[in-house]
């Protein structure tokens, strides 16, 4: 019997005492603020304290060793976390966090959480979270060190499209793995269904809640993680048109988006506000909806291949994220809810951050994103274009800059185990 060199080494190694295969990766987290129920708390805590995953309490096989927090408020928890987890040190600057106080990049991955905190709003209502500014400081360390490591950016890339595009381009030119986005694409679904790969989608929409420049992004990611799987893959978006208030209802009436898809999405909700007193679960008429939804917002947009999508913010009617699409060859709409166990009284743990952190872990372990950052580049641009359309009195905004082409991940990446 001939033994290959590889088998010989493997066999010989098994006779030796257990050796650490490789040093555990070290991570730095760069955050705006760290209080109870902030995104930083949800994300960084999962690296520090572990989380329920695949039927056990999973501790990520890597160490979050450096933390930068931009704003330390009265309700700050970062110092408590640092005290309880002495392996994690807090640093006064992003550069120091990434170099662990030295002169060269000293971590193997960076988690950027630029959500929550006190930052200015611009005239369009966008909160100027400093994700781009933080990213710039991160890549400066990469450049100065002659080495780059994977970066995860929570939520959209930047409120400013040009900056978002620059972040993306930088990651490409420097050749580091870059992932971003919302929990919505990776959380549970009820039902637990995936858009068939290559589906011929005619139209898609989401019915969600929350406000502009906030949950609109989540509603857009809800749609995009599904429609990117369509025949031909993603081809970009040509234009965006927002509707708000009375114009929303008129657009609804005019069939700008399909009423049957809107109804299908609403039928996936677990939080449909009862339209009549004494009934706990009753389907609303448009008249009921008008009464319940004080500030409805729609971002209606068309992809380059003709697929029409609409993100509907119907705050006051639902408190969850629901998706529906019209697919060729199916008589009924395809629909599901992207289920968030939301700690607003319904739960105590925002466990939808668990699959998000788990996807980050996989990128940090393999050096490869589990889903394309182009998804979030596109939804970043859609969010900005939706806000812009609202700012320009609900005029249609052409989006030649959103000619973003990409193919989806081959494997499903939503939570189902």
């Amino acid at each position, binding site marked *: 019997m001939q033994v290959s060199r590889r088998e010989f080494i493997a066999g010989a190694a098994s006779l030796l005492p257990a050796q650490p295969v490789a040093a555990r990766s070290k991570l730095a987290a760069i955050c705006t603020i760290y209080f*109870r*129920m902030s995104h930083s*708390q*949800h994300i960084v*805590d*999962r690296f520090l*304290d*572990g*989380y*329920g*995953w*695949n*039927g*056990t*309490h*999973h501790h990520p096989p890597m160490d979050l060793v450096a933390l930068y927090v931009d704003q330390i408020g009265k309700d700050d*928890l970062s110092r*408590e976390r640092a005290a309880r987890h002495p392996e994690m040190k807090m640093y006064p600057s992003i550069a120091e966090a990434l170099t662990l106080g030295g002169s060269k990049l000293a971590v193997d991955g960076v988690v950027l959480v630029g959500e929550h905190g006190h930052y200015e709003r611009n005239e369009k209502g966008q909160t100027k979270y400093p994700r781009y500014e933080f990213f710039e400081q991160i890549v400066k360390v990469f450049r100065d060190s002659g080495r780059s490591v994977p970066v995860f950016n929570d939520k959209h890339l930047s409120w400013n499209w040009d900056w978002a595009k620059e972040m993306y381009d930088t990651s490409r030119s420097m050749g580091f793995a870059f992932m971003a986005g919302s929990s919505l694409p990776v959380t*549970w679904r*009820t*039902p*637990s*269904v995936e858009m068939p790969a290559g589906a011929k989608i005619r139209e898609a929409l989401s019915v969600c809640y929350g406000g502009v420049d906030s949950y609109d992004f989540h509603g857009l990611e809800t749609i995009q993680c599904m429609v990117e799987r369509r025949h031909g893959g993603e081809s970009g978006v040509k234009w965006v048109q927002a509707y708000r208030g009375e114009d929303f209802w008129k657009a609804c009436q005019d069939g700008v988006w399909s009423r049957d898809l809107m*109804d*299908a999405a609403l*039928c*996936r*909700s*677990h*939080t*449909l506000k*009862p339209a009549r007193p*004494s*009934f*706990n*679960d*009753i*389907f609303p008429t448009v008249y009921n909806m008008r009464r319940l939804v004080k500030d409805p917002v729609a971002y209606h947009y068309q992809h380059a291949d003709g697929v029409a999508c609409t993100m509907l913010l119907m705050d006051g009617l639902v408190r969850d994220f629901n998706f*529906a699409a019209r697919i060729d060859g199916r008589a*009924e*709409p*395809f*629909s*599901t809810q992207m*289920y968030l*166990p939301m*700690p607003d009284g*319904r*739960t*105590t*743990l*925002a*466990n939808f951050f668990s699959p998000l952190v788990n996807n980050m872990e996989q990128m940090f372990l393999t050096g490869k994103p589990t889903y394309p950052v182009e998804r979030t580049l596109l939804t970043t641009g859609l969010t900005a274009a939706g806000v812009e359309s609202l700012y320009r009195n609900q005029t249609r905004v052409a989006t030649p800059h959103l000619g973003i082409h990409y193919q989806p991940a081959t494997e499903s990446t939503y*939570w*189902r*185990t």
Partner: protein
Amino acid sequence: MPKRIAVITTVYRYLSHAQHEADRILVGYPYQGRWHRPDMKIASLYVDQKPEKDLSVLRAVEFGFQLYPTIAETLRCGGDKLAVDGVMIIGEHGDYPRNEKGQILYPRYEWFKQCVDVFEKDGRAVPVFNDKNLSYSFEKAKWMVDASRRLDFPVLAGSSLPVTWRLPDIELALDCEIEEALMVGEGESDAMDYHALEALQCMVERRKGGETGVKSVQLVEDEAVWKAGDAGRWSKELLTAALSRSDTPQGLTVKDGRTQDLVHNGELARLAKNPWAYFIEYTDGLKATLLMLNGVVTDFNFAARVKGMGVQSTQFLLTPEPNVTYSACLIGKVEEMFTTGKAPYPVERTLIVSGILESCLTSRIQGHKPLETPHLDVHYRAPRESQHCRT
């Protein structure tokens, strides 16, 4: 012609079981991504108690059905013959006394018996849905199932937990070999422990050989719960798995949002308020445990070690009030029975769980002693198809 349904209930007020279950026949319910309007109508209603904020009269006026003062009249819609195509007995909520075991004495058996009397007198029987457990008494529950066999009408019963969404959406393979099972629940006895036991049962009934009955049960409390865990009577690995599915850990999570490994961080015993462990030993040797952990979590989670499959675990998702969409999952099954004349899953599940709960509570008042349960000689096979909400 829409099916005519008689509803027999304890109380019809906002968020009572009668309201959210019977209303779904009146106004429809979410089903497979559409608002489904069943081809059924409420023909008649019997309400035992009408407290303040009773809705029964309002509903009768709006939807055009009659309230009757007796169950027989309700089933006959005021005539002299059975005049409905199905009966829903919703004996949950309302003001009823408790027995020495703490069981609420809902008159489900008594009402079912009155339905059976009508069926016998009128020479025709129709399908019956009984919400939750059949009766607080196994003997009475057994009579109900036997009567349905004798008169050959289908009965569907039980909780919403077996049919609600699961996170993750798993089903144990039919005829799998379950080595040990554990369920975590919370809430008051004998309402919420019933739900937890039925969630447990709908999983373990799928094991090799099917359900063959329960040999013995025991209920222990407080310190004895933890001692039993230390002694290996219930598995900490399975509890870890079950709690890993929870979205509602209490204590430090509520205080500052952190995740917790509750089995290993020392918080479990500190958080639990009067924990109860329900030990069930099945005739075929399977051991299952329900831990009611008030103060620890507020959701319902299951774990089992399955030969060749490792530990399988899931959360039975109780969707929030007021929609409680899990009850739409249940009404979908009720409608299926009324439409097809066949119960989609066996009433024996509810029969055995009714008996397990009664015997566990008996063990408790008899000094937490183990009880042989030869009467729980209930045999049945699980449905081949999954019955929980997954489409």
